[in-house]
């Protein structure tokens, strides 16, 4: 159970290789960051009622657990900090400051370092969490966005929205070893459990580029064409892949849908109607529920994975960014 509870997001799929030595509280809580309210809303995992609203520094966006699920790191863009939320107390207890405009990040396998996209600097920062010091900045294309640690722990992938690229970073060397051109405005990443393929969403290309990691080339593109929408209204951003790597769910942005994709056949099986500008998507612990965060309708759609139906829409803060489920 503790192993299961650790893996909520494709972004955190790296944790698969860790042992189950964790102290998860299994609260079942859903944490939702809201860019304009400077808060993280905590929802009950069963009733979806608001348990608490945690005040953070300005503009919290990406959220991730520490390895033992006692804390959450929240990247606060305008607060220029990583806030640290204590899950037992449900409040921000500490912060790492002086980080210019942090957005997305991932952790090293041991949880000691944070790899963070620094939008203003056009760099991937390596932050040592114990000393709270930025130990290195690796130059990448402008507006770096999605970050994913490879399960081997040695490689980090980062997208550059402006360069239309995925940079493959060798952490030890501290440099990009490959720059792969993908669809326009690449945003988020997921790696298949066999570690063969990297899936990258492209917001302005209405597509996912699938990269073959054996040779770092784009192998295939999945185009999203929900009925009744023009290409410019289909803006995929968030992605969540099941642990077994069977199904991927992708937020369609302005098309107000979540796409369900069969990973093996790369076919889109369904488009599920959600709220406005569905960006990030995340599973609960047993992957029975999917949470789609709707940035322009200030709510979260709770999707029953078995039936692909929306069970409920839950109002949260202004301009919600992502959900993280304990």
């Amino acid at each position, binding site marked *: 159970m503790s192993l299961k509870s650790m893996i909520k997001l494709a972004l955190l799929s790296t944790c698969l290789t860790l042992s189950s030595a964790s102290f998860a509280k299994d609260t079942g809580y859903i944490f939702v960051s809201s860019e304009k309210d400077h808060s993280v809303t905590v929802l009950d995992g069963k009733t979806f009622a608001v348990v608490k609203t945690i005040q953070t520094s300005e503009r919290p966006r990406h959220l991730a657990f520490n390895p033992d699920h006692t804390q959450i790191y929240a990247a606060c863009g305008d607060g220029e900090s990583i806030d640290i939320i204590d899950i037992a107390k449900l409040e921000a207890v500490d912060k790492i400051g002086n980080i210019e*405009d942090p957005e997305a990040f991932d952790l090293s396998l041991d949880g000691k370092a944070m790899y963070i996209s620094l939008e203003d600097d056009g760099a991937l920062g390596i932050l040592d969490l114990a000393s709270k010091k930025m130990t290195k900045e690796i130059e990448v294309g402008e507006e770096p966005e999605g970050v994913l640690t490879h399960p081997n722990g040695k490689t980090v992938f980062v997208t550059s929205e402006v360069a239309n690229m995925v940079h493959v970073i060798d952490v030890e060397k501290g440099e990009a070893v490959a720059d792969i051109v993908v669809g326009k405005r690449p945003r988020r990443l997921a790696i298949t459990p066999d570690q063969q393929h990297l899936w990258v969403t492209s917001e302005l290309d209405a597509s996912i580029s699938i990269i073959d990691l054996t040779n770092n080339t784009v192998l295939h593109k999945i185009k999203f064409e929900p009925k009744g929408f023009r290409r*410019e209204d289909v803006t995929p951003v968030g992605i969540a892949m099941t642990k077994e790597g069977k199904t991927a769910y992708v937020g369609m942005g302005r098309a107000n849908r979540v796409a369900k994709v069969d990973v093996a056949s790369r076919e889109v099986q369904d488009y599920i109607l959600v709220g406005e500008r569905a960006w990030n998507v995340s599973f609960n612990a047993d992957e029975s529920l999917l949470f789609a965060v709707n940035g322009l309708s200030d709510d979260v759609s709770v999707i029953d994975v078995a039936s692909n139906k929306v069970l409920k829409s839950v109002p949260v803060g202004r301009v919600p960014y992502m959900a993280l489920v304990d």
Partner: protein
Amino acid sequence: MHSKTLMLSGLALLISTFTTSTRANESTPQTPSTYVIGYLELDAAIDKRYSDKQLYAKYLGQALGRPFAGAEVALKEVKYHGKALGLNFALEKATAKDSADLGTQLETLKQKGAKFILTDLPASDLATLAQSTRDQELALLNISAPDDSLRQTDCQPNLYHLLPNYAMQTDALAQFLVSHKWQSVLELVGQLPADDQWAQAFERSAKRFGLKITEKKSFVLSNDPRERDQNNVALLTGGDQAVIFIADSQGEFARQVPYHTLKPNLVVGAEGLTTGAWHWSWERHGAPQLNKRFEKKADRAMSSTDWAAWMGVKTIAEAVQIKNTTDFKTLTEYFTAPDTAMDGFKGNGVSFRAWDHQLRQPLLLHTHNAVIDRAPLKGFLHQINNLDTLGFDERESTCKF
């Protein structure tokens, strides 16, 4: 062809001209070559749009400074775009001391290897320059002249437009007014030729979207009591209208129209609510990051002409990245290809219209400090691309290359 368009710097250029062509073709990514993008402008003493007095006033929708800073911001964003070809992009700026000097300055840029040249020029100078170079392997990218004439009778095969023209701007405004059912409009027009162009564009948009122009009046910028029926805002605005549209390309009269009207009318056009390619208060599609980068570079807010210069560099670099070549014809074909969708940080992908080389793009309807809406507005549909509800659609185009 490939090596021809590469600009090798300094000594390397001398060497390559004396060796066989194979050497240049084999140039490896280890020794990056420079790909020069040209930038042509008029001296600030000549180009009144950027006079100190004009910039100081910060008239709504007008330039807040010279747009070169936009091109510089873009240059940093495209540092990886030429990587696969081993290219670094560079900007070369030439400033002509007057209109007669433009040809010479253009030659200088061409000699430095520039095939794509951003032009920050008034319409008359640009029309002459484009006409005289129309048969050359050269693309002029207009970043600051909104004149409809450049897209219609004066269009040229080598001329591309990043800035939205008057017709696009007034279509966006008309869509907004119709959406709000504010359909009766008093039209106020200044004495300058550009005012007249703007007014004509608005009249075309009014007809197209079903606005009713209750009356058209010309205003004069004066204090002469004998001209009070034309210089007194209250006397000008006594009619029965929902909205006042004002065509004032210079801006000084327009800024005194709101609050001096006889009735509590809304003002649109050169004051109140205007339309543009960009505004610093735009917050979506990556805009805050771009605004921040620009402000860091230029120490001022980003405006429409800055965006146009930024977009100009981006279109060239993006074409090079996507087509993986510097072949001129391939790049310009990409500009107008039906499936091209470049990122303008305004949502919809942008591309050049094949029939007049105008960049189709969303427009921002904005006040002095807020974006109120984005055009095309909801419900204004087009059979191919909704962006073509703004400006000259193919069937209306009188451009013949």
